[in-house]
């Protein structure tokens, strides 16, 4: 009987803790009691990531080798004459692709960035977040934007010494200021509907079409203008409505990204002040 009473009291205490927890969760730094747990599990995540990546790379290399061998046998006679030339051209094409991709990103963002690897994902199905292996010691701060060469990924919400949490743009709490490239209409892109994003506040008289590209507008001080968010995949214009109902297909496949770039954009002084107040 005593055990039951203890259990009920324990559950009630936890219930109170749950009610108080939003204050803890909203803080951009880990609380003192959170740090040891977060650091230990994130360290294991990093180890896991390295082991899995090693196994996966070895396996893929093996498969590639088998494929290359078969392909070589089949095409050897036919391509013998052109082999040297095609290899050289292929290398040049790959180098060109990589350089133009980098140039494109560099031209678009005009800002410093830190490259980070994703070591863990959100353990529940309710939110979309990842953990990266760069933290406060690498200059990562809350509210920094995170992108890849293909487009935006999310923003930093919580930092520790060697790890940071990135809230992905597909999360229900996420919002990014966006602009439609062709018409220059500005709106807010929000997540929370699986692989589909939603572009809100585009006036009904705006002439938008499926396939229009949506970029960051740069007005949120998190992302510089011109970074790809996604393409319009569905437009509904209900009668007597003030705004279009727009769905976006993101350009970045969030389940496949492994490396990201964390942007170091100087924040306006008032936002810096608010962030410092939050941390306190």
């Amino acid at each position, binding site marked *: 009987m005593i*055990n039951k009473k*203890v259990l009920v009291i324990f559950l009630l205490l936890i219930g109170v803790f749950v009610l108080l927890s939003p204050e803890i969760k909203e803080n951009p730094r880990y609380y003192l009691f959170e740090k040891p747990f977060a650091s230990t599990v994130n360290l294991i995540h990093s180890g896991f990531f390295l082991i899995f990546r090693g196994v996966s790379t070895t396996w893929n290399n093996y498969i590639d080798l088998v494929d290359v061998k078969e392909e070589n046998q089949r095409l050897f006679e036919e391509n013998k004459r052109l082999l040297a030339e095609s290899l050289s051209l292929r290398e040049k094409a790959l180098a060109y692709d990589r350089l133009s991709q980098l140039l494109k990103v560099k031209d678009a963002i005009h800002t410093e960035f830190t490259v980070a690897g994703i070591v863990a994902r959100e*353990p529940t199905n*309710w939110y979309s977040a990842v953990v990266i292996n760069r933290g406060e010691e690498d200059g990562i701060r809350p509210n920094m934007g995170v992108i890849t060469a293909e487009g935006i990924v999310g923003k930093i919400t919580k930092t520790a010494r060697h790890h940071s949490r990135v809230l992905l743009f597909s999360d229900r709490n996420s919002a990014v200021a966006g602009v439609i490239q062709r018409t220059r209409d500005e709106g807010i892109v929000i997540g929370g509907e699986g692989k589909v994003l939603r572009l809100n506040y585009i006036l009904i008289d705006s002439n938008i079409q499926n396939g229009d590209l949506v970029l960051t507008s740069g007005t949120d001080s998190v992302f510089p203008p011109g970074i790809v968010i996604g393409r319009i995949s569905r437009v509904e214009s209900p009668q007597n409505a003030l705004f279009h109902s727009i769905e976006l297909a993101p350009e970045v496949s969030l389940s496949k990204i492994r490396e990201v770039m964390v942007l170091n954009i100087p924040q306006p002084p008032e936002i810096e002040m608010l962030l410092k107040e939050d941390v306190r």
Partner: protein
Amino acid sequence: MKSLGWVLFILFLLAFQGSVLNPLVIHGIRPDLILITVYLLGILKGDIKGGLIGASLGFIMDILSAGPVYYNVFSKCFIGSLAGVIGRWIQNPGPVLHAGMIFAASLLQGIGALLILAFLGMARLPQDLFYITIPQAIFDGALGGIVYLFLTTRRKRTVSRWAV
């Protein structure tokens, strides 16, 4: 030594749940291995231990999650102690019954999470129910049943080997 083994197992489980390359993810839904573990430990160890283990695991899960409240600490504690009570009252339960119980526990937990999100104005109904809560409950139930079947088969084999 045994306690160290348990700590390592729990850390491994927590890391595996949030691993980048978790092979158990189907269509973006990852099963709640912590829930399954807490349920099975509750069955084996009783309501008090089940509740305490559930609270500890849920607490660490909450630290690692981007959710706006510490919810798992409560839900896992509740599920652990509930499993302890079930374990005491049900005789010779089979894997199907356990699969059903884990399905119900996961569904209950999902509905709780949905209510919190609705309270915070962040729920998307009915999509969250049909695309997250129910598929996850089915996945958790099926996986929990398989794990229980695996564990009992191993146990029976060990017992029969000793009996000979």
